Protein backbone atom coordinates (compact mmCIF):
# COMPACT_ATOMS: atom_id res chain seq x y z
CA UNK A 1 0.00 0.00 0.00
CA UNK A 2 1.33 3.44 -0.86
CA UNK A 3 2.23 5.65 2.09
CA UNK A 4 0.59 8.67 0.48
CA UNK A 5 -3.06 8.06 -0.20
CA UNK A 6 -4.15 8.12 -3.81
CA UNK A 7 -7.12 10.01 -5.13
CA UNK A 8 -8.78 11.30 -8.29
CA UNK A 9 -7.07 14.67 -8.85
CA UNK A 10 -7.39 15.33 -5.12
CA UNK A 11 -11.15 15.68 -5.52
CA UNK A 12 -13.42 14.91 -2.56
CA UNK A 13 -14.84 11.38 -2.45
CA UNK A 14 -17.86 12.15 -0.29
CA UNK A 15 -19.85 15.34 -0.54
CA UNK A 16 -19.81 17.55 2.51
CA UNK A 17 -22.97 19.00 4.01
CA UNK A 18 -24.52 21.79 1.95
CA UNK A 19 -26.03 23.57 4.92
CA UNK A 20 -25.61 27.29 5.52
CA UNK A 21 -24.39 28.68 8.83
CA UNK A 22 -28.07 28.66 9.84
CA UNK A 23 -27.62 25.05 10.83
CA UNK A 24 -24.49 25.70 12.92
CA UNK A 25 -26.48 28.47 14.61
CA UNK A 26 -29.38 26.07 15.11
CA UNK A 27 -27.09 23.59 16.86
CA UNK A 28 -26.38 26.37 19.36
CA UNK A 29 -29.89 27.84 19.71
CA UNK A 30 -31.59 24.44 19.87
CA UNK A 31 -29.23 23.32 22.63
CA UNK A 32 -29.67 26.53 24.60
CA UNK A 33 -33.42 26.29 24.24
CA UNK A 34 -33.68 22.63 25.20
CA UNK A 35 -31.44 22.91 28.24
CA UNK A 36 -33.28 26.08 29.31
CA UNK A 37 -36.59 24.20 29.36
CA UNK A 38 -35.11 21.48 31.57
CA UNK A 39 -33.50 24.05 33.84
CA UNK A 40 -36.80 25.92 34.02
CA UNK A 41 -38.75 22.88 35.19
CA UNK A 42 -36.19 22.12 37.87
CA UNK A 43 -36.18 25.76 38.96
CA UNK A 44 -39.96 25.64 39.23
CA UNK A 45 -39.73 22.61 41.49
CA UNK A 46 -37.16 24.46 43.61
CA UNK A 47 -39.46 27.49 43.73
CA UNK A 48 -36.84 29.68 42.09
CA UNK A 49 -39.47 31.61 40.23
CA UNK A 50 -37.31 34.23 38.54
CA UNK A 51 -35.05 31.57 37.10
CA UNK A 52 -38.05 29.48 36.06
CA UNK A 53 -39.61 32.47 34.33
CA UNK A 54 -36.46 33.37 32.43
CA UNK A 55 -35.88 29.76 31.38
CA UNK A 56 -39.45 29.15 30.24
CA UNK A 57 -39.60 32.26 28.08
CA UNK A 58 -36.08 31.69 26.69
CA UNK A 59 -36.96 28.11 25.78
CA UNK A 60 -40.03 29.22 23.83
CA UNK A 61 -38.14 31.98 22.06
CA UNK A 62 -35.34 29.56 21.21
CA UNK A 63 -37.83 27.04 19.80
CA UNK A 64 -39.29 29.69 17.49
CA UNK A 65 -35.86 30.82 16.33
CA UNK A 66 -34.79 27.18 15.81
CA UNK A 67 -37.76 26.51 13.56
CA UNK A 68 -37.05 29.67 11.57
CA UNK A 69 -33.39 28.71 11.10
CA UNK A 70 -34.31 25.21 9.92
CA UNK A 71 -36.91 26.45 7.49
CA UNK A 72 -34.59 29.13 6.09
CA UNK A 73 -32.04 26.48 5.16
CA UNK A 74 -34.38 24.33 3.06
CA UNK A 75 -34.11 24.29 -0.72
CA UNK A 76 -37.92 24.53 -0.78
CA UNK A 77 -38.90 26.27 2.49
CA UNK A 78 -42.59 26.18 1.61
CA UNK A 79 -42.40 22.41 1.91
CA UNK A 80 -41.21 22.41 5.54
CA UNK A 81 -44.26 20.46 6.65
CA UNK A 82 -43.25 17.57 4.38
CA UNK A 83 -40.94 16.73 7.30
CA UNK A 84 -44.03 15.64 9.24
CA UNK A 85 -45.68 13.46 6.59
CA UNK A 86 -43.82 10.41 7.94
CA UNK A 87 -42.41 9.13 11.23
CA UNK A 88 -39.00 7.69 10.46
CA UNK A 89 -36.63 6.50 13.16
CA UNK A 90 -33.77 5.96 10.64
CA UNK A 91 -33.79 9.69 9.87
CA UNK A 92 -32.41 11.76 12.76
CA UNK A 93 -33.68 14.86 10.97
CA UNK A 94 -37.21 13.48 10.92
CA UNK A 95 -37.02 12.45 14.59
CA UNK A 96 -35.56 15.84 15.45
CA UNK A 97 -38.34 17.70 13.66
CA UNK A 98 -40.92 15.78 15.65
CA UNK A 99 -39.05 16.52 18.89
CA UNK A 100 -38.74 20.21 18.02
CA UNK A 101 -42.41 20.42 17.02
CA UNK A 102 -43.63 18.84 20.26
CA UNK A 103 -41.13 20.94 22.18
CA UNK A 104 -42.35 24.09 20.47
CA UNK A 105 -45.96 23.38 21.42
CA UNK A 106 -45.28 22.50 25.09
CA UNK A 107 -42.78 25.26 25.67
CA UNK A 108 -45.05 27.73 23.86
CA UNK A 109 -47.96 26.91 26.16
CA UNK A 110 -45.74 27.09 29.24
CA UNK A 111 -44.31 30.46 28.21
CA UNK A 112 -47.70 31.91 27.27
CA UNK A 113 -49.12 30.95 30.66
CA UNK A 114 -45.99 32.29 32.34
CA UNK A 115 -46.46 35.68 30.72
CA UNK A 116 -50.24 36.05 30.62
CA UNK A 117 -51.78 33.38 32.75
CA UNK A 118 -51.59 31.61 36.05
CA UNK A 119 -49.22 28.97 37.36
CA UNK A 120 -51.79 26.23 37.20
CA UNK A 121 -51.76 22.53 36.43
CA UNK A 122 -51.61 23.08 32.68
CA UNK A 123 -48.45 25.08 33.03
CA UNK A 124 -46.86 22.44 35.23
CA UNK A 125 -47.66 19.71 32.70
CA UNK A 126 -46.50 21.82 29.73
CA UNK A 127 -43.34 22.81 31.58
CA UNK A 128 -42.54 19.20 32.48
CA UNK A 129 -43.24 18.10 28.92
CA UNK A 130 -40.94 20.71 27.48
CA UNK A 131 -38.25 19.76 30.01
CA UNK A 132 -38.43 16.09 29.02
CA UNK A 133 -38.35 17.00 25.31
CA UNK A 134 -35.66 19.62 25.82
CA UNK A 135 -33.08 17.04 26.89
CA UNK A 136 -33.13 15.02 23.63
CA UNK A 137 -33.49 18.26 21.68
CA UNK A 138 -30.09 19.23 23.05
CA UNK A 139 -28.36 16.00 22.05
CA UNK A 140 -30.13 14.60 18.97
CA UNK A 141 -28.28 17.12 16.81
CA UNK A 142 -25.11 15.15 17.51
CA UNK A 143 -26.75 12.10 15.93
CA UNK A 144 -28.01 14.30 13.09
CA UNK A 145 -24.50 15.17 11.98
CA UNK A 146 -22.84 11.89 13.04
CA UNK A 147 -25.22 9.88 10.83
CA UNK A 148 -23.42 11.05 7.68
CA UNK A 149 -20.47 9.83 5.65
CA UNK A 150 -18.51 12.87 6.87
CA UNK A 151 -15.51 11.19 8.55
CA UNK A 152 -14.84 13.72 11.35
CA UNK A 153 -18.51 13.58 12.37
CA UNK A 154 -19.31 9.92 11.98
CA UNK A 155 -16.21 8.69 13.77
CA UNK A 156 -16.89 11.13 16.64
CA UNK A 157 -20.34 9.64 17.15
CA UNK A 158 -19.56 8.33 20.64
CA UNK A 159 -18.41 11.69 22.08
CA UNK A 160 -20.37 14.29 20.11
CA UNK A 161 -23.62 13.92 22.12
CA UNK A 162 -21.74 14.63 25.36
CA UNK A 163 -19.98 17.64 23.84
CA UNK A 164 -23.34 18.98 22.67
CA UNK A 165 -25.06 18.28 26.01
CA UNK A 166 -22.33 20.13 27.92
CA UNK A 167 -22.36 23.00 25.45
CA UNK A 168 -26.15 23.24 25.77
CA UNK A 169 -25.99 23.36 29.58
CA UNK A 170 -23.21 25.94 29.49
CA UNK A 171 -25.12 28.25 27.17
CA UNK A 172 -28.45 27.83 29.01
CA UNK A 173 -26.83 28.63 32.34
CA UNK A 174 -25.02 31.63 30.92
CA UNK A 175 -27.97 33.05 29.01
CA UNK A 176 -30.45 32.86 31.88
CA UNK A 177 -27.97 34.24 34.40
CA UNK A 178 -27.95 37.48 32.43
CA UNK A 179 -31.50 38.29 33.55
CA UNK A 180 -31.15 37.41 37.23
CA UNK A 181 -29.77 38.91 40.39
CA UNK A 182 -26.59 37.41 41.81
CA UNK A 183 -28.65 35.55 44.38
CA UNK A 184 -31.07 34.09 41.83
CA UNK A 185 -28.29 33.14 39.43
CA UNK A 186 -26.56 30.76 41.85
CA UNK A 187 -27.93 27.69 40.05
CA UNK A 188 -26.83 29.12 36.69
CA UNK A 189 -23.29 29.68 37.97
CA UNK A 190 -22.94 26.11 39.21
CA UNK A 191 -24.31 24.81 35.94
CA UNK A 192 -21.90 26.97 33.94
CA UNK A 193 -18.84 25.84 35.87
CA UNK A 194 -19.79 22.15 35.75
CA UNK A 195 -20.88 22.20 32.10
CA UNK A 196 -17.89 24.27 31.01
CA UNK A 197 -15.45 21.83 32.55
CA UNK A 198 -17.37 18.88 31.06
CA UNK A 199 -17.33 20.46 27.61
CA UNK A 200 -13.60 21.08 27.70
CA UNK A 201 -12.92 17.50 28.78
CA UNK A 202 -15.39 15.96 26.32
CA UNK A 203 -13.98 17.92 23.36
CA UNK A 204 -10.43 17.00 24.29
CA UNK A 205 -11.27 13.33 24.68
CA UNK A 206 -13.12 13.32 21.37
CA UNK A 207 -10.20 14.77 19.44
CA UNK A 208 -7.71 12.50 21.20
CA UNK A 209 -9.67 9.36 20.43
CA UNK A 210 -10.15 10.41 16.81
CA UNK A 211 -6.38 10.22 16.56
CA UNK A 212 -3.87 11.94 14.31
CA UNK A 213 -5.88 11.53 11.09
CA UNK A 214 -9.48 12.38 11.98
CA UNK A 215 -8.59 14.65 14.90
CA UNK A 216 -6.79 16.89 12.47
CA UNK A 217 -9.89 18.53 10.90
CA UNK A 218 -10.84 19.75 14.40
CA UNK A 219 -7.54 21.54 14.90
CA UNK A 220 -6.78 23.09 11.50
CA UNK A 221 -8.32 25.86 9.42
CA UNK A 222 -11.59 27.48 10.40
CA UNK A 223 -12.54 24.65 12.75
CA UNK A 224 -9.21 24.95 14.55
CA UNK A 225 -9.57 28.70 14.98
CA UNK A 226 -13.12 28.32 16.32
CA UNK A 227 -11.97 25.53 18.66
CA UNK A 228 -9.17 27.67 20.02
CA UNK A 229 -11.52 30.61 20.58
CA UNK A 230 -14.09 28.32 22.18
CA UNK A 231 -11.49 26.92 24.56
CA UNK A 232 -10.21 30.36 25.53
CA UNK A 233 -13.65 31.80 26.13
CA UNK A 234 -14.92 28.77 28.01
CA UNK A 235 -11.88 28.63 30.31
CA UNK A 236 -12.24 32.36 30.97
CA UNK A 237 -15.95 31.96 31.67
CA UNK A 238 -15.48 29.04 34.04
CA UNK A 239 -12.67 30.69 36.03
CA UNK A 240 -14.38 34.09 36.23
CA UNK A 241 -17.67 32.54 37.29
CA UNK A 242 -16.05 30.34 39.91
CA UNK A 243 -13.87 33.11 41.36
CA UNK A 244 -15.89 36.31 41.01
CA UNK A 245 -19.38 35.31 39.84
CA UNK A 246 -20.87 35.46 43.33
CA UNK A 247 -19.35 38.82 44.21
CA UNK A 248 -19.56 40.97 41.10
CA UNK A 249 -22.53 41.34 38.80
CA UNK A 250 -20.28 42.82 36.13
CA UNK A 251 -17.85 39.91 36.29
CA UNK A 252 -20.77 37.47 36.21
CA UNK A 253 -22.24 39.13 33.13
CA UNK A 254 -18.86 39.19 31.41
CA UNK A 255 -18.37 35.51 32.19
CA UNK A 256 -21.84 34.69 30.88
CA UNK A 257 -21.14 36.45 27.60
CA UNK A 258 -17.80 34.65 27.31
CA UNK A 259 -19.56 31.33 27.96
CA UNK A 260 -22.16 32.03 25.28
CA UNK A 261 -19.41 32.93 22.83
CA UNK A 262 -17.49 29.81 23.78
CA UNK A 263 -20.50 27.54 23.27
CA UNK A 264 -21.28 29.20 19.94
CA UNK A 265 -17.69 28.83 18.72
CA UNK A 266 -17.68 25.18 19.81
CA UNK A 267 -20.67 24.46 17.55
CA UNK A 268 -19.09 26.30 14.64
CA UNK A 269 -15.86 24.41 15.21
CA UNK A 270 -17.61 21.05 14.98
CA UNK A 271 -19.59 22.27 11.96
CA UNK A 272 -16.47 23.29 10.06
CA UNK A 273 -14.50 20.21 11.12
CA UNK A 274 -17.11 18.22 9.24
CA UNK A 275 -16.82 20.44 6.20
CA UNK A 276 -13.04 20.12 6.20
CA UNK A 277 -12.99 16.35 6.65
CA UNK A 278 -15.33 15.83 3.70
CA UNK A 279 -13.35 18.14 1.42
CA UNK A 280 -10.07 16.22 1.56
CA UNK A 281 -10.18 12.66 0.17
CA UNK A 282 -7.34 11.54 2.42
CA UNK A 283 -9.65 11.46 5.47
CA UNK A 284 -12.01 9.08 3.68
CA UNK A 285 -9.41 6.89 1.97
CA UNK A 286 -6.85 6.63 4.77
CA UNK A 287 -9.48 6.01 7.41
CA UNK A 288 -11.22 3.32 5.38
CA UNK A 289 -7.93 1.69 4.48
CA UNK A 290 -6.76 1.78 8.08
CA UNK A 291 -10.04 0.43 9.35
CA UNK A 292 -9.35 -2.56 7.13
CA UNK A 293 -12.95 -2.92 6.25
CA UNK A 294 -13.89 -5.34 3.59
CA UNK A 295 -14.20 -3.96 0.12
CA UNK A 296 -17.79 -3.98 -0.85
Amino acid sequence: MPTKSRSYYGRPIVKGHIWEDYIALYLFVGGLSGASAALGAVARARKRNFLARSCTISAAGGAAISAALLIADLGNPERFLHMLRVVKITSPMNVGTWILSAFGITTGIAAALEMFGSHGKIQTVAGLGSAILGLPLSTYTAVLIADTATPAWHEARAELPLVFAASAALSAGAWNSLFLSRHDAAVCRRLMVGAGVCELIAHRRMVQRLGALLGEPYSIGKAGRYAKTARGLTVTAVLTTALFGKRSRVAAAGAALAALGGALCERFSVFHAGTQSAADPKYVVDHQRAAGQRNS
Partner: protein
Amino acid sequence: MTTNEVAHERMGFFTDTTLCIGCKACEVACKEWNQLPADGYHFSAESYDNTGALSGTTWRHVAFIEQFEGESRDLKTPVAFEEGGRWLMSSDVCKHCTHAACLDVCPTGALFRSEFGTVVVQDDICNGCGYCVPACPFGVIDRRPDTGRAAKCTLCYDRLKDGQPPACAKACPTESIQYGELSELRARAEKRLETVAVIDARAQLYGADERGGVGGFGALFLLTDDPEVYGLPPAPRVTTRDLPQMWKSAALAAAALGAGILIAAFGTRDAD
Protein backbone atom coordinates in the same frame (compact mmCIF):
# COMPACT_ATOMS: atom_id res chain seq x y z
CA MET B 1 -38.41 -8.09 -19.48
CA THR B 2 -42.13 -7.57 -19.41
CA THR B 3 -43.59 -4.29 -18.36
CA ASN B 4 -46.77 -5.11 -16.52
CA GLU B 5 -45.54 -7.52 -13.92
CA VAL B 6 -46.11 -6.51 -10.32
CA ALA B 7 -42.91 -8.02 -8.99
CA HIS B 8 -39.64 -7.43 -10.79
CA GLU B 9 -36.18 -8.79 -10.57
CA ARG B 10 -33.70 -6.33 -9.09
CA MET B 11 -32.32 -4.40 -12.04
CA GLY B 12 -28.96 -2.73 -12.25
CA PHE B 13 -25.82 -1.77 -14.12
CA PHE B 14 -22.55 -3.50 -14.72
CA THR B 15 -19.99 -0.93 -15.80
CA ASP B 16 -17.00 -2.72 -17.32
CA THR B 17 -14.41 0.06 -17.25
CA THR B 18 -11.97 -1.94 -19.38
CA LEU B 19 -14.30 -1.35 -22.33
CA CYS B 20 -14.82 2.37 -21.73
CA ILE B 21 -13.36 4.62 -24.43
CA GLY B 22 -14.24 7.88 -22.69
CA CYS B 23 -16.68 9.08 -25.35
CA LYS B 24 -19.08 10.51 -22.74
CA ALA B 25 -22.09 9.41 -24.78
CA CYS B 26 -23.56 8.18 -21.47
CA GLU B 27 -23.24 11.65 -19.92
CA VAL B 28 -24.94 13.24 -22.91
CA ALA B 29 -27.68 10.62 -23.24
CA CYS B 30 -28.43 10.92 -19.53
CA LYS B 31 -28.70 14.70 -19.70
CA GLU B 32 -30.88 14.50 -22.81
CA TRP B 33 -33.31 11.91 -21.53
CA ASN B 34 -33.61 13.31 -18.03
CA GLN B 35 -33.73 16.91 -19.27
CA LEU B 36 -30.89 17.96 -17.01
CA PRO B 37 -29.52 21.48 -17.49
CA ALA B 38 -25.96 22.09 -18.69
CA ASP B 39 -23.39 22.87 -16.04
CA GLY B 40 -21.61 25.61 -17.98
CA TYR B 41 -18.22 25.70 -19.64
CA HIS B 42 -15.50 24.90 -17.23
CA PHE B 43 -11.96 23.80 -18.00
CA SER B 44 -10.60 21.61 -15.23
CA ALA B 45 -7.16 20.78 -16.69
CA GLU B 46 -7.72 17.27 -15.36
CA SER B 47 -7.16 15.16 -18.46
CA TYR B 48 -10.30 15.03 -20.63
CA ASP B 49 -12.58 15.35 -17.63
CA ASN B 50 -14.28 18.72 -17.48
CA THR B 51 -17.33 17.28 -15.74
CA GLY B 52 -15.45 16.62 -12.50
CA ALA B 53 -17.94 14.73 -10.40
CA LEU B 54 -21.49 13.47 -10.14
CA SER B 55 -23.95 16.14 -9.07
CA GLY B 56 -27.64 16.97 -8.97
CA THR B 57 -27.52 17.78 -12.67
CA THR B 58 -24.90 15.19 -13.74
CA TRP B 59 -25.92 11.60 -13.16
CA ARG B 60 -23.21 9.91 -15.21
CA HIS B 61 -19.60 11.05 -14.96
CA VAL B 62 -16.71 9.72 -17.02
CA ALA B 63 -13.40 9.76 -15.17
CA PHE B 64 -10.08 9.94 -17.05
CA ILE B 65 -6.94 8.71 -15.33
CA GLU B 66 -3.56 8.99 -17.02
CA GLN B 67 -0.98 6.65 -15.56
CA PHE B 68 2.36 7.46 -17.17
CA GLU B 69 5.59 7.49 -15.24
CA GLY B 70 8.54 9.85 -15.48
CA GLU B 71 9.95 11.50 -18.61
CA SER B 72 7.59 9.95 -21.10
CA ARG B 73 4.88 12.18 -19.65
CA ASP B 74 6.04 15.20 -21.65
CA LEU B 75 3.47 14.32 -24.35
CA LYS B 76 6.03 14.85 -27.16
CA THR B 77 6.96 11.22 -27.47
CA PRO B 78 4.18 8.67 -27.70
CA VAL B 79 4.20 6.05 -24.98
CA ALA B 80 3.72 2.46 -25.97
CA PHE B 81 1.51 0.16 -23.93
CA GLU B 82 4.51 -2.07 -23.25
CA GLU B 83 6.31 0.78 -21.55
CA GLY B 84 3.78 0.63 -18.76
CA GLY B 85 1.73 3.73 -19.39
CA ARG B 86 -2.03 3.40 -19.51
CA TRP B 87 -5.31 5.24 -19.61
CA LEU B 88 -8.15 4.40 -17.27
CA MET B 89 -11.61 5.54 -18.17
CA SER B 90 -14.68 4.84 -16.14
CA SER B 91 -18.28 5.99 -16.18
CA ASP B 92 -19.44 6.54 -12.61
CA VAL B 93 -23.07 6.46 -11.54
CA CYS B 94 -25.29 6.06 -8.47
CA LYS B 95 -24.65 2.66 -6.87
CA HIS B 96 -28.31 2.02 -5.93
CA CYS B 97 -27.07 0.48 -2.66
CA THR B 98 -28.80 -2.47 -1.06
CA HIS B 99 -28.65 -0.48 2.20
CA ALA B 100 -28.95 3.10 0.97
CA ALA B 101 -27.97 5.85 3.42
CA CYS B 102 -29.74 8.56 1.38
CA LEU B 103 -32.98 6.64 1.58
CA ASP B 104 -32.55 5.93 5.31
CA VAL B 105 -31.91 9.52 6.36
CA CYS B 106 -34.45 11.24 4.09
CA PRO B 107 -36.82 12.96 6.56
CA THR B 108 -39.74 13.36 4.15
CA GLY B 109 -39.84 9.94 2.55
CA ALA B 110 -39.08 11.54 -0.82
CA LEU B 111 -36.50 8.83 -1.54
CA PHE B 112 -37.95 5.39 -2.03
CA ARG B 113 -37.05 1.90 -3.23
CA SER B 114 -38.71 1.17 -6.56
CA GLU B 115 -40.12 -2.12 -7.78
CA PHE B 116 -36.85 -2.55 -9.72
CA GLY B 117 -34.81 -2.42 -6.50
CA THR B 118 -33.48 1.01 -7.39
CA VAL B 119 -33.39 4.15 -5.22
CA VAL B 120 -35.36 7.08 -6.63
CA VAL B 121 -36.17 10.66 -5.47
CA GLN B 122 -39.76 11.85 -5.74
CA ASP B 123 -39.41 15.40 -6.91
CA ASP B 124 -42.83 16.45 -5.63
CA ILE B 125 -42.03 15.36 -2.06
CA CYS B 126 -38.41 16.46 -1.56
CA ASN B 127 -38.14 19.74 0.34
CA GLY B 128 -34.45 20.26 -0.27
CA CYS B 129 -33.22 19.70 3.29
CA GLY B 130 -29.95 18.39 1.84
CA TYR B 131 -29.50 15.62 4.44
CA CYS B 132 -29.00 12.90 1.83
CA VAL B 133 -26.02 14.79 0.37
CA PRO B 134 -23.47 14.20 3.18
CA ALA B 135 -25.12 10.86 4.03
CA CYS B 136 -24.15 9.19 0.74
CA PRO B 137 -20.85 7.30 1.20
CA PHE B 138 -20.06 7.88 -2.50
CA GLY B 139 -20.85 11.59 -2.82
CA VAL B 140 -23.42 10.84 -5.51
CA ILE B 141 -26.63 12.64 -4.62
CA ASP B 142 -26.68 16.45 -4.59
CA ARG B 143 -29.10 19.34 -4.44
CA ARG B 144 -29.94 20.88 -7.80
CA PRO B 145 -29.26 24.61 -7.85
CA ASP B 146 -32.17 25.23 -10.22
CA THR B 147 -34.88 23.38 -8.29
CA GLY B 148 -33.44 23.40 -4.76
CA ARG B 149 -34.25 19.70 -4.49
CA ALA B 150 -32.13 16.55 -4.30
CA ALA B 151 -31.51 14.64 -7.51
CA LYS B 152 -29.53 11.68 -8.79
CA CYS B 153 -29.64 8.74 -11.20
CA THR B 154 -33.03 6.99 -11.20
CA LEU B 155 -31.78 4.16 -13.42
CA CYS B 156 -34.21 5.84 -15.84
CA TYR B 157 -37.24 4.80 -13.80
CA ASP B 158 -39.58 6.02 -16.53
CA ARG B 159 -37.83 4.02 -19.24
CA LEU B 160 -37.70 0.89 -17.10
CA LYS B 161 -41.44 1.01 -16.63
CA ASP B 162 -41.75 0.98 -20.40
CA GLY B 163 -39.38 -1.95 -20.72
CA GLN B 164 -36.60 0.22 -22.12
CA PRO B 165 -32.99 0.16 -20.92
CA PRO B 166 -31.62 3.29 -19.21
CA ALA B 167 -30.48 5.99 -21.64
CA CYS B 168 -26.77 5.66 -20.78
CA ALA B 169 -26.70 1.90 -21.37
CA LYS B 170 -28.60 2.36 -24.62
CA ALA B 171 -26.12 5.00 -25.81
CA CYS B 172 -22.90 3.25 -24.76
CA PRO B 173 -21.15 2.19 -28.00
CA THR B 174 -18.82 -0.38 -26.44
CA GLU B 175 -21.15 -2.12 -23.97
CA SER B 176 -19.01 -0.79 -21.17
CA ILE B 177 -22.33 0.06 -19.52
CA GLN B 178 -24.51 -3.02 -19.34
CA TYR B 179 -28.03 -3.07 -17.99
CA GLY B 180 -30.01 -6.06 -16.83
CA GLU B 181 -31.10 -8.26 -13.96
CA LEU B 182 -28.59 -7.79 -11.19
CA SER B 183 -28.09 -11.50 -10.50
CA GLU B 184 -27.28 -12.09 -14.14
CA LEU B 185 -24.99 -9.07 -14.28
CA ARG B 186 -23.10 -10.30 -11.23
CA ALA B 187 -22.44 -13.64 -12.89
CA ARG B 188 -21.35 -11.87 -16.06
CA ALA B 189 -19.06 -9.56 -14.07
CA GLU B 190 -17.39 -12.45 -12.28
CA LYS B 191 -16.76 -14.22 -15.56
CA ARG B 192 -15.35 -11.07 -17.09
CA LEU B 193 -13.07 -10.57 -14.08
CA GLU B 194 -11.52 -14.00 -14.68
CA THR B 195 -10.63 -12.99 -18.23
CA VAL B 196 -9.27 -9.55 -17.38
CA ALA B 197 -7.34 -10.74 -14.32
CA VAL B 198 -5.12 -12.80 -16.61
CA ILE B 199 -3.89 -9.60 -18.28
CA ASP B 200 -4.07 -7.22 -15.33
CA ALA B 201 -3.56 -8.42 -11.77
CA ARG B 202 -5.02 -5.17 -10.44
CA ALA B 203 -8.45 -6.01 -11.84
CA GLN B 204 -11.18 -6.11 -9.21
CA LEU B 205 -14.94 -6.14 -8.94
CA TYR B 206 -16.33 -3.19 -7.03
CA GLY B 207 -19.68 -3.56 -5.34
CA ALA B 208 -20.32 -7.25 -5.92
CA ASP B 209 -19.81 -8.38 -2.31
CA GLU B 210 -23.16 -8.49 -0.53
CA ARG B 211 -21.41 -8.67 2.84
CA GLY B 212 -19.88 -5.24 2.22
CA GLY B 213 -20.62 -2.01 4.07
CA VAL B 214 -23.70 -1.16 1.99
CA GLY B 215 -24.81 -4.73 1.33
CA GLY B 216 -23.61 -4.72 -2.27
CA PHE B 217 -24.38 -2.28 -5.07
CA GLY B 218 -27.12 -2.29 -7.66
CA ALA B 219 -24.47 -0.93 -10.02
CA LEU B 220 -21.32 -3.05 -10.23
CA PHE B 221 -17.96 -1.98 -11.60
CA LEU B 222 -14.97 -3.82 -13.00
CA LEU B 223 -11.95 -1.68 -12.11
CA THR B 224 -8.28 -2.18 -12.93
CA ASP B 225 -6.92 -0.21 -10.02
CA ASP B 226 -7.93 0.63 -6.45
CA PRO B 227 -11.30 2.39 -6.12
CA GLU B 228 -9.77 5.61 -4.72
CA VAL B 229 -7.87 6.08 -8.00
CA TYR B 230 -11.27 6.50 -9.66
CA GLY B 231 -12.50 8.79 -6.88
CA LEU B 232 -14.46 5.98 -5.23
CA PRO B 233 -14.32 5.08 -1.51
CA PRO B 234 -12.32 1.88 -0.86
CA ALA B 235 -14.62 0.60 1.89
CA PRO B 236 -17.96 2.45 1.83
CA ARG B 237 -20.29 1.90 4.75
CA VAL B 238 -23.89 2.90 5.34
CA THR B 239 -23.68 5.03 8.48
CA THR B 240 -27.22 4.24 9.59
CA ARG B 241 -25.81 0.86 10.60
CA ASP B 242 -24.43 2.61 13.67
CA LEU B 243 -27.70 4.39 14.40
CA PRO B 244 -28.76 2.22 17.39
CA GLN B 245 -25.42 2.97 19.02
CA MET B 246 -25.74 6.66 18.20
CA TRP B 247 -29.28 6.97 19.58
CA LYS B 248 -28.03 5.26 22.74
CA SER B 249 -25.16 7.74 23.12
CA ALA B 250 -27.56 10.65 22.58
CA ALA B 251 -30.00 9.25 25.17
CA LEU B 252 -27.20 8.81 27.71
CA ALA B 253 -25.96 12.34 27.06
CA ALA B 254 -29.52 13.67 27.47
CA ALA B 255 -29.79 11.81 30.78
CA ALA B 256 -26.43 13.23 31.86
CA LEU B 257 -27.66 16.71 30.95
CA GLY B 258 -30.77 16.21 33.07
CA ALA B 259 -28.68 14.88 35.97
CA GLY B 260 -26.29 17.83 35.68
CA ILE B 261 -29.15 20.32 35.86
CA LEU B 262 -30.64 18.51 38.87
CA ILE B 263 -27.28 18.54 40.65
CA ALA B 264 -26.80 22.23 39.91
CA ALA B 265 -30.23 23.02 41.34
CA PHE B 266 -30.42 20.63 44.27
CA GLY B 267 -26.84 19.85 45.18
CA THR B 268 -26.41 22.99 47.23
CA ARG B 269 -26.78 24.31 50.71
CA ASP B 270 -27.61 27.81 49.49
CA ALA B 271 -30.54 29.42 51.19
CA ASP B 272 -33.47 30.01 48.88
